[in-house]
């Protein structure tokens, strides 16, 4: 069982969370008109076999969005951070 330690609620089964995709992608600036940039953002994935930074939402807990480091080859996870910290640091 994949276990995620929510910074608010503690260690929980991953089934309490909703997977939200690759967090390594930076959304193109608002107003970017170049369709190729948007295509690459929406449709292309690094899909690494190894370290992966990704979003999870604790839907059956505090409902916070989190950023988690997970190794896709082993499913080892690191401690998640609230996604808002990342957004605020931009």
């Amino acid at each position, binding site marked *: *069982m994949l276990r995620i330690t929510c910074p608010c609620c503690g260690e929980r089964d991953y089934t309490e969370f909703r997977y939200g995709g690759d967090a390594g992608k930076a959304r193109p600036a608002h107003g970017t008109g170049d369709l190729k940039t948007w*295509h690459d953002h929406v*449709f292309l*994935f690094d899909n690494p076999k190894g370290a992966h930074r990704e979003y999870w939402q604790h839907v059956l807990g505090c409902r916070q969005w989190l950023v988690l480091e997970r190794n896709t080859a082993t499913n080892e996870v690191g401690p998640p951070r609230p996604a808002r910290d990342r957004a605020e640091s931009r």
Partner: protein
Amino acid sequence: MASRYSAFALARHALDPHLPWPRAWRSPAPKSSYDAVVIGGGGHGLAAAYYLAANHGMTNVAVLEKSYVGSGNIGRNTTIVRSNYLIDGNTQFFEFSLKLWEGLSHALNFNVMLSQRGQCVLAHGPSQLDVLARKGNIMRLNGIDAEILDRGEVMRLLPYLDYSPDARFPIWGGLLQRRAGTARHDAVAWGYARAADGLGVDIIENCEVTGIILQDGRCTGVETNRGRILAERTAIAVAGHSSHVAAMAGLRLPVESHILQAFVSEPIKPLVHHVVSFGAELFYISQSDKGGLVFGGHIDGFNTYTQRGHFPKVQTVAECAVAVMPCISRLRLLRHWGGVMDMTPDGSPFIGRTPIRNLYINGGWCYQGFKAVPAGGWTLAHTMAKDEEHELNRGYSLDRFERGGELDDHGSGNWTWKQ
């Protein structure tokens, strides 16, 4: 080349049990160069190599497999073949594949044990039956067999489902494709490998590609753990590891790798005579010749390369099973396993050229790689031999999202983990 399999050969070996069967394919050392190299000795890679030789006369071909033939998803799936698709591009491709399945045992001189036992998709409400009727009409307009069944007809066909008044998911009817069914998954890999080998293709096992050689924007071969192998044309057909291998050529793909689990119960007497697909969730079940119920569900829901499934999905699939077939609630699972699926944002695959000249790809198979093996190999071989797409894989280009050419048969949006 192994001798031709026939009733006579079988009788000859029965009379002399000490006479060994010849190896089904050679074990050659890799040559320094080939006309075409296919990375991946799974169903699609082996089929492509076979059709390169059989359809296009290209016999100086190698298939590079990092492990052994049949060790990937071709040997770990629920073996269903069918062609009940909705969208133009998918419908014709999968019907072509089913037609190839129908002649495959003869073409390969290898019994792939195709069993056209029929597949029934269940409808659990009137609107769902309408949707299935639409799909059935689309199939029939494309010359594919499809029958809409009402509740009574489903009851006669599949009497073991839950028809009780308090069934959680009442059964209103179903869509039956009689030509759908199952095949013996390993035999498909072995049959293509043996037939390709017989035409001169080198099948090189335990040969892992570690790099793709690029020169002036062209692919000229691969680096492997058994040395450099040059090739006029190179194809990637590695399923769950498509992104991993494509990255060696600097390509990013519209693919994420996810795990899909499959399950086999303990063997029981014949019960499920068709392939049955639950309509309220993703759940599909058939019974193997050994008696085990073979079934599967959705992917686990987050990208991973581990071939180990997670328990919550086992529970979900078991709940689906019991919801529609309460009679199997006491059965024990004999085994379950996970395979790495190359999931795409629209649920459809990629077969064709890449931005790099002389480099081709066959991947992004999501749930549907097995049934597509013959057509996937056929169209990849065509694309490699002629450097242009076959009409059947024109819609499966890598750049289709840039052109608004999604083939979203499920209509579930552009999330790989929701396909």
